[in-house]
């Protein structure tokens, strides 16, 4: 039980500050590279960027143990990277190459990785919640101490699967950490235009689930809340619901002209962005120094360049293997 105890408290020292800052910068620069590769048509399909929301993945993942499970959405590059899916494998997946983390079959929206128990990459809004409930049900029946972390946006709260899943998880006291990334827009539909009750965490509370609303732009608050929640879940208190209030700085996908919101609104949120805010604070607190940031940027740039080169050099799966992995051990 000592490990659980030490794991719940956040001791913000220099090395932790550097780690969290690097995690966020790493996601940001990786996705900026993806956007660039998208314009070069190296990456195709839909590409949903997480820019602005990095504090959530960067803060939640350290609260999980290696044997825990993660269920994410189609905006999941950041989650995969912080969870430990190698950047090379993520980038190769974006290219659709056989060296990708889903062997190229999934693409940007369907990153899967068995070694880190990363269960996708689900592109049906709300579709991952019942799966997370089931993973947690298995853990409960197997009397394991594992937790399943389930990420989704506030748009999912309008789906039936959201309500069915919260009810099941609460009814059966399952070890699920529900993480709502409330970025205020379900694609182009503002929260107030789609929900009669805009306080998402109140919905969870109505299912008798412990829930909190947290500043999702502050990585320290994000992590503290996640550690509190994971500790409660491991202590057998059932599911926990965290609503992180955040904002997506870029378009919903690469096809979005953003006709539904003002440039001014985006600017205001950018000013309180998770990276700039944490970096300024950590520098003022003398935890980090400007040359630390330069080193992080340099390290991240070379990792991304290597990942892009890895993906570029990757191989295309032979067309002869087209129907592989539809069912186990054979073709349909």
């Amino acid at each position, binding site marked *: 039980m000592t490990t659980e105890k030490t794991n719940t408290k956040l001791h913000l020292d220099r090395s932790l500050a550097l780690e969290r800052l690097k995690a966020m910068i790493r996601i940001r620069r990786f996705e900026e590279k993806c956007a660039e590769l998208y314009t070069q048509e190296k990456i195709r399909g839909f590409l949903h960027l997480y820019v602005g929301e990095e504090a959530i993945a960067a803060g939640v993942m350290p609260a999980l143990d290696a044997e825990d*499970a993660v269920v994410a959405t189609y905006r999941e590059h950041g989650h995969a990277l912080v969870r430990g899916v190698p950047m090379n494998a993520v980038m190769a997946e974006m290219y659709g190459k056989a060296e990708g983390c*889903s062997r190229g079959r999934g693409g940007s929206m369907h990153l899967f990785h*068995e070694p880190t128990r990363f269960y996708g990459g689900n592109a*049906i809004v709300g579709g991952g919640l*019942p799966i997370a409930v*089931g993973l947690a*049900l298995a853990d409960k*029946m197997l009397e394991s101490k594992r937790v399943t972390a389930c990420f989704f946006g506030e748009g999912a709260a309008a789906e039936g699967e959201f309500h069915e899943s919260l*009810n099941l998880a609460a009814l059966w006291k399952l070890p699920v950490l529900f993480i709502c990334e409330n970025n205020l827009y379900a694609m182009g539909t503002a929260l107030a235009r789609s929900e009669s009750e805009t306080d998402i965490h109140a919905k969870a509370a109505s299912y008798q689930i412990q829930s909190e609303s947290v500043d999702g732009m502050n990585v320290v608050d994000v992590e503290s809340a996640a550690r509190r929640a994971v500790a409660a879940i491991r202590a057998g208190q059932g599911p926990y619901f965290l609503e992180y209030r955040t904002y997506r700085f870029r378009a919903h996908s690469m096809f979005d002209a953003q006709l539904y919101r003002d440039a001014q609104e985006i600017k205001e949120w950018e000013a309180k962005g998770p990276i700039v805010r944490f970096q300024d604070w950590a520098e003022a607190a003398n935890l980090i120094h400007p040359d630390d940031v330069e080193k992080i940027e340099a390290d991240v740039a070379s990792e991304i360049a290597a990942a892009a080169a890895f993906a570029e050099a990757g191989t295309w799966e032979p067309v002869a293997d087209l129907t592989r992995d*539809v069912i186990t051990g054979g073709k349909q």
Partner: protein
Amino acid sequence: MTELTYREAVRQAHKDALNADERVFLMGEDVGQYGGCYAVSKGLLEEFGPERIRDTPLSESGFTGAGIGAALGGMRPIVEIMTVNFSLLALDQILNNAATIRHMSGGQFNVPLVIRMATGAGRQLAAQHSHSLEGWYAHIPGLKVLTPATIDDAYGMLGAALADPDPVLIFENVMLYNRPGILEARVADIASAAVRRPGKDITLITYGGSLWKTLEAAETLAAEGIDAEVIDLRVLRPLDNAAILASVAKTRRAVVIDEGWRSGSLAAEVSARIMEGAFWELDAPVGRVCTAEVPIPYPKHLEDAALPQAPVIVAAAKSAIG
């Protein structure tokens, strides 16, 4: 050799699976305290307890998805959905997750999930409890679709489905639950069709609840000197092409009997495969006996008229023979 009903055979299969593997559990609406909508799971709660015979809220998508998650997490869940019409509320989970996760993950994750549901008409349950959509599900790569029609299959297919590493759907026709028979073989394969009545003049291809009507039709035809071969498809996905084509090559004539609606039906698929694989062997166009294109009506006489019945099968066979 035990005499029992189809329902009892399915129940016995559950008991044996639950006893054989502690990862197996059953969940669904009213499977526990109520004993199952069609009484399949009656008594299982008392024997195995509420952890393994798990009543769920009315949330088909939620508990079917939970079955997928539990399968990913190392369990061997059996999800019971009351009727095929209710399975449409879980279609997102079945199609977008169960059928795709192995492929989308590049083969990293399997979904060893069994979903059972009642299907078919004949009990005057009208247009929201009576449809036969198994042919629809057979459209979806990544799923296996089973339609047990006999006592042996009612028992054996559950074990075979649980042993399969991928999602398997089992469709139990509601008219079969009370049907008695002898349990002879306890092990069933889930890859092949079966010849239920050998014959040389025409092949009647069917599955599920229509098997017994088709066998009845074959006896009527026999009395009139026509020797029909009856094939029970058993597995709608993947289809046993070889068995279908071998029979048609022998009889040179075929009629497909399918409780689904005709347009875009499984019967259409079987007919197309015969055309592709045995066109030059045919002496007549492939015939079809399907459900009339109407939501299933409540009154008995209209429900009967909507469904494939033995006299219509006899007429279709005679028409193919000319």
